[in-house]
């Protein structure tokens, strides 16, 4: 079989239609020819799952300042975030939030008609003193509201959407990005997109854990595409575990449930957070709460001795639960058959948010080394990128904010770049070749029945990742996981699929995704093994304590064949010097 190739030319091609990708496209559309490629329909992107809200120091409900927001973000990041990026994030937040309101996002309102705000874990007033209402929200469907408004604005601006197209390969020439190759999922066929600027916004990648809040589409494709061009990833060991995943399923009971006053209780009915964060209790940052939950479980105080504790909202009353947390209640009803108005609900930590990713500078331009070298024409923003605002641990409501601020900024920067480049540089002759080989090979395995099923390898990956490198980590488990990843990458070459067709071949897509997941999972395991300290979400039981002397630095990782090469680079510290993180 010889696959057809179709050619397209645009000024800007954005990969991903979540909040980050759509915001970038919105800023370039209307000005230059803009296309968005997405493997799911834009409104089906995982940004729609964001529940709790989006942070900005609007001060609509109580006094607030961007400096306070910055302090919380720096401290929350366990001092690994770059403070120049963090300052940009929290300062732009205010303007971007107003802009999203102007774009039509249906935020909840205060009595005065302003955007309503609510408290969220890790956000405080007056440099860490008292809980702060900083999260702008639309019930508990904030991401959904933002995603749809942005999509609709892009439709208005006549962005060219290639929906259900799957990006396979970046096209590079002499270190510059000239476009990418994608597969048309519905009709089959390879498509070359020739562009002056490519923007990756492929989202999170916690799908490689068994218990996860992430969508099935969150398979880290953007990261794998970048690594395959010999480019590095940054801080991959930092993956946040959310303390309140629906027991056994992993979907999220939003932090808004704690923001509104929910309690966490163990088998004895105690609010155990008093043992871990006496002052902030349930509103301590996620990493602190996840470790508390995991410790309760590990020490036998889980409900009925099982791997879960309770979240209890009963004292909030029916009215508040129905108006502020309708989706959370619906979730528990559907997946656990429990009504939060009358019952506590079992939860467990769930793999949730990826702090690391594709390194970018403050212009969202992708970095090619651990100095400041950039890759012309290649941009990234949102959860797939690492700029780094979240450092070792992200605060709730700061990530949809990151998507909006840096997606938007990336759009503006691409606009400048595109305007300076009048023509498209010629493509290399064999632009689609590697993608063609990958797809033709997989299609040729269909029906051979002798190979390995991609689902089996993926299950093994997810189970072992949850077993060996979740909330608590140690050298032995991490070494085990590195080895498992190596074996799985080897076995992945033997994968055979069932479906040899071109039309809507999701069997093929899942096999390609598995390859991507194995690549970045391997890198995560290697980075985690190397970092012998506890910082934010990365907790080594065999190396207690944060070690600023040796480890106040970013990890940069290259996947070179079967080997991961690591380098380190300094953290940008401007305003706030590292202190002990206490809540």
């Amino acid at each position: 079989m010889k696959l057809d190739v179709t050619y397209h030319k645009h000024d800007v091609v954005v990969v991903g239609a979540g909040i980050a990708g759509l915001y970038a496209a919105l800023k370039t559309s209307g000005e230059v020819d803009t296309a968005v490629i997405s493997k799911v329909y834009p409104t089906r992107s995982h940004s729609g799952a964001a529940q709790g809200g989006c942070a900005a120091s609007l001060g609509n409900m109580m006094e607030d300042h961007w400096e306070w927001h910055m302090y919380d973000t720096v401290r929350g990041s366990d001092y690994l975030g770059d403070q120049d990026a963090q300052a940009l994030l929290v300062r732009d937040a205010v303007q971007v939030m107003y802009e999203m309101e102007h774009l039509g996002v249906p935020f909840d309102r205060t009595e005065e008609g302003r955007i309503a705000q609510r408290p969220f874990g890790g956000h405080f007033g007056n440099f860490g003193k008292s809980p702060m209402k900083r999260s702008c929200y639309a019930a508990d469907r904030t991401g959904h509201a933002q995603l749809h408004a942005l999509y609709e604005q892009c439709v208005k601006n006549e962005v060219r959407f290639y929906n259900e197209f799957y990006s396979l390969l970046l096209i590079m020439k002499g270190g510059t990005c000239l476009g990418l190759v994608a597969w048309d999922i519905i009709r089959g066929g390879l498509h070359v997109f020739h562009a002056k600027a490519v923007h990756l916004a492929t989202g999170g990648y916690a799908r490689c854990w068994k218990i996860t809040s992430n969508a099935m589409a969150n398979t880290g494709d953007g990261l794998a595409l970048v690594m395959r061009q010999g480019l590095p990833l940054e801080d991959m060991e930092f993956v946040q575990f959310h303390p309140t995943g629906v027991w056994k399923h992993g979907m999220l009971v939003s932090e808004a449930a704690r923001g509104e006053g929910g309690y966490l209780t163990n088998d004895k009915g105690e609010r155990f957070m008093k043992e871990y964060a006496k002052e902030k209790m349930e509103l301590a940052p996620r990493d602190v709460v996840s470790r508390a939950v995991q410790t309760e479980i590990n020490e036998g105080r889980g409900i009925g001795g099982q791997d879960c504790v309770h979240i209890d909202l009963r004292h909030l009353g029916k009215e508040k639960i129905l108006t502020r947390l309708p989706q959370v209640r619906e979730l528990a009803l559907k997946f656990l058959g429990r009504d939060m108005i009358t019952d506590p609900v079992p939860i467990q930590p769930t793999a949730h948010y990826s702090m690391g990713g594709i390194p970018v500078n403050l212009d969202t331009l992708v970095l090619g080394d651990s100095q400041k070298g950039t890759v012309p024409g290649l941009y990234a923003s949102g959860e797939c990128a690492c700029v780094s605002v979240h450092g070792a641990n992200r605060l709730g409501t700061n990530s949809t904010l990151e998507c909006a601020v840096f997606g938007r900024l990336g759009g503006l920067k691409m606009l400048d770049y595109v305007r300076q480049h009048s023509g498209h540089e010629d493509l290399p002759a064999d632009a689609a070749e590697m993608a063609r080989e990958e797809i033709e090979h997989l299609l040729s395995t269909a029906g051979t029945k002798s190979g390995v099923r991609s689902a089996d390898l993926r299950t093994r990956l997810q189970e072992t990742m949850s077993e060996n490198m979740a909330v608590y980590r140690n050298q032995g488990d991490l070494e085990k996981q590195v080895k498992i990843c190596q074996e799985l990458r080897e076995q992945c070459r033997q994968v055979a699929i069932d479906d040899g067709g071109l039309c809507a071949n999701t069997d093929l897509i899942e096999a390609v995704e598995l390859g991507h997941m194995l690549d970045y999972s391997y890198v995560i395991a290697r980075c985690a093994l190397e970092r012998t300290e506890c910082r934010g979400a990365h907790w080594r039981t065999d190396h207690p304590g944060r070690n600023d002397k040796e480890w106040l630095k970013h990890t940069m990782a290259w996947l070179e064949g079967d080997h991961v090469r690591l380098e380190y680079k300094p953290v940008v510290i401007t305003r706030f010097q590292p202190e002990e993180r206490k809540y």
Partner: protein
Amino acid sequence: MERTLRVFRFNPETGQEPHYDTFTIEVEDSWTVLDALNEIKWHHDGSLSYRRSCRHGICGSCAMMVNGKNEATCEKPLSALKGTITVEPLKSFPVIKDLMVDQEDFFEKLRLVKPWLINHKAPPTDKERLQSPEDRKIIDGTWECILCGACTSSCPAFWDNQGFLGPAALLKAFRYVGDTRDEGLDERVGILDSKIGVWRCHTIFNCVEACPKSLNPTAAIVKLRRRLIQEKL
């Protein structure tokens, strides 16, 4: 526990007639219909095609017909269904393959109602527009729509005439027409008042029953009609 699923199959590439395949699989108590489809795809027949992503009813990918009723399959527990479970693609959209339907036209219909905020006054430069909580409440029950297509696919008026905008697009229209920040009714009257607009709805309420998010497109259509009449007077 074992359950049996009868699954609609169609592959345009094989030239075979549409048919049903039956799978008997081992399931767990807590599984949903989507979990069962995943089990089939991952361990029995990888060539089965369907859409899915978020697993908790917010992305709108996985709406299908389950025992004759439209459902978000990721939220439909197997335990709520008796006997053999029949899974089919959403009715009245063209089938692409197996359980995947073509929704291009569905999204095009949304575009026709101009689903974006239309306001001719420049917003304040460094503040939000004001809106009272009561005004904001008017559009509750509209903006939550996940665009799964379950409503439009279950609508008899849409079955009769596929040109009809359908309940999802009209619900979206009211999401903006009802938003006190919006001034775009004028620009939308043409399409809403047209042959494919609000008057085609026969208020049969199938859409209300089909909506996995318990929204009420019919009520929104009635409100749109009222606004159009007011506009004309």
